[in-house]
């Protein structure tokens, strides 16, 4: 196990979190966690197939960033996309139905776990190939910029948040897009979820310089590192980045130091990460930490939080029922959606 990086400390006193926002964020994090736990259960029960990558442990990143976006902002994800989809507002029903391959799924059962889409929620997609979502996200940001600058639409101030992992930052598309984003001052936030591993490849064995946020500097871009297990720290960094982007001041790279509590995918034996390392990170569970914060700050009472958890559990259970009862795609529609009809 490599020497852990010192996590930057965020002073929670700076958070200025309202009770309402606190509960929104909490609910979102619980939803992410419970949804994924349910997926694991369903996968092992043979209800869902293919490669399924869970997000447990990283909830502070999705909730911290996406819950400070506007509903007309854009979000772009990877194969580890369930929780981003939920944070963005895709109903749990439709995400679960997608994982069950049903017609009611957000991708009509055609996409599956690694390909969640919702144009209604400006979810640009889950992208199954490493790095390929980054240029697509850049395109959404370019589009906002184009409307604002080339077409003079002052309402076009949407921001795009693009999520990806540490391993992805060794891929050329990452650098190509940092350059273009900075060059044209596009309204985009690159959110690196540095969970220390790319499947079985430890970050320090793959990157000659492991501090990813620093890479922004050589593109003249703002880069920050945050404790990715602290939703308030993530949220604070995201807010700064969002206002910068919204104001037309350009992109930001946010490196969130985080950890996944499960294997790479549900098919991964997860034999390489040490018990020590796992325990160390488990002890920083972002959900527990945020719970403690809410209670400590008296932003919510224990029974209120329990009520949230119960509500979410019901939503997740209902999602399974919904998914199970939903129809399969009609075989006669096998060829739908290949081309758009003009």
């Amino acid at each position, binding site marked *: 196990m490599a020497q852990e990086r010192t996590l930057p400390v965020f002073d929670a006193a700076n958070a200025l979190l309202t009770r309402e926002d606190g509960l929104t964020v909490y609910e979102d994090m619980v939803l992410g966690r419970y949804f994924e736990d349910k997926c694991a259960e369903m996968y092992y029960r043979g209800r869902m197939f293919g490669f399924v990558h869970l997000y447990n442990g990283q909830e502070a990143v999705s909730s911290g960033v996406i819950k400070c976006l506007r509903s007309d902002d*854009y979000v*772009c994800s990877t194969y580890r996309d369930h929780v981003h989809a939920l944070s963005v507002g895709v109903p749990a029903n439709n995400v679960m139905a997608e994982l069950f391959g049903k017609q009611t*799924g*957000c*991708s*009509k*059962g*055609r*996409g599956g776990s690694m*390909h969640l*889409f*919702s*144009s209604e929620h400006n979810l*640009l*997609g889950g*992208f199954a*190939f490493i790095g*390929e979502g*980054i*240029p*697509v*996200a*850049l*395109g*959404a*940001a*370019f*589009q*906002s*910029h*184009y409307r604002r*600058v*080339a*077409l003079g639409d002052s309402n076009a101030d949407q921001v795009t948040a693009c999520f990806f992992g540490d391993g992805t930052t060794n891929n*050329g*598309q990452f650098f*190509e*897009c940092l*350059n*273009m984003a900075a*060059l044209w001052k596009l309204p985009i936030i690159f959110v690196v979820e540095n969970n220390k591993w790319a499947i079985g490849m430890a970050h320090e064995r793959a990157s000659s310089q492991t501090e990813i946020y620093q890479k922004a500097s050589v593109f003249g871009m703002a880069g920050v590192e945050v404790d990715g297990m602290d939703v308030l720290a993530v949220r604070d960094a995201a807010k700064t980045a969002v206002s910068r982007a919204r104001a037309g001041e350009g992109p930001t790279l946010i490196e969130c130091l985080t950890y996944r509590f499960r294997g790479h995918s549900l098919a991964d034996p997860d034999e390489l990460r040490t018990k020590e390392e796992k325990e160390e990170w488990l002890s920083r569970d972002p959900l527990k930490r945020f719970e403690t914060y809410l209670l400590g700050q008296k932003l919510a009472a224990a029974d209120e939080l329990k009520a949230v958890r119960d509500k979410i559990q019901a939503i997740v259970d209902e999602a399974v029922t919904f998914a199970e009862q939903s129809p399969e795609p009609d075989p006669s529609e096998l060829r*739908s*959606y*290949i*081309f*758009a*009809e*003009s």
Partner: protein
Amino acid sequence: MADTLLFNALREAVDEEMGRDDAVFVLGEDVGVYGGSYKVTKGLYEKYGEFRVLDTPIAENSFTGMAVGAAMTGLRPIIEGMNMGFLLLAFNQIANNAGMLRYTSGGNYKIPMVIRGPGGVGRQLGAEHSQRLEAYFQAVPGLKIVACSTPYNAKGLLKSAIRDDNPVLFFEHVLLYNLKENLPEHDYLVPLDKAEVVRPGKDVTILTYSRMRHHVTQATKKLEQKGFDPEIIDLISLKPLDFETIGASIKKTHRVIVVEECMRTGGIGAEIVASINDRFFDELDAPILRMSSQDIPTPYNGKLESLTIVQPRQIEEAVEKMMALQI
């Protein structure tokens, strides 16, 4: 009215469509200030500004993906591949995202984009600059593939491609930019999915596209003098193929020659022969003759280079031979 050069016909198409719809924009290497390597975007940067005619860094995969994202969110990008070969670097974005994303998203997004530029064997440009990517891309689902061959069809097809709501790979040929033709003054479109009967005839159906169309018409001049009457069809749409036009012709001539610039293995011709076999086998009086480029990286040396591609003389002989066989 003065004749229009093919590259100018393309420029007019882009200009007219940009004027008509402000979601249309061009991006690529040197499309802006420089005006495009083959002048297809000359003057448009000055007219439409730096964001609608966007000079990109040399990052094909990423600017192609960027175009996909822009198309998903409502713009209508036109990518210029300075040479289509360079888009090998963008294969992933073209195949996975331009081609497949609409399906994989269950119809959530459409991707109206055009990827255009010069392909084909030029004059001693060497192997890497002489590629015929239509062969490499033809198996990718979700893409439309079109090849223009005259100023008239270049303009009308490009306008249709820009208006189409799907990704269109639009092949020009590096040696055809200076063809001239008198174009209509009025706005016109040429449909993306219709083959063009270049010369009606009854003896044999010659299926071809892009520059090889001109090799075929050249050969036909000689053949006419010898009393042959071939039907020449320019496929225009390489994917999907227009089987209505192709079938009607085969039912008339019962003989087919395919003339393509692709390498033989896995070329467009392979699919044509296989499809005709699927659909019109019983109409054939002779095996289809497939005339393709050789399976060789294009050599620089001019003589070797010309040996790799089909020459008019060979087409002439092939028609004569096929007709002799049958009489």
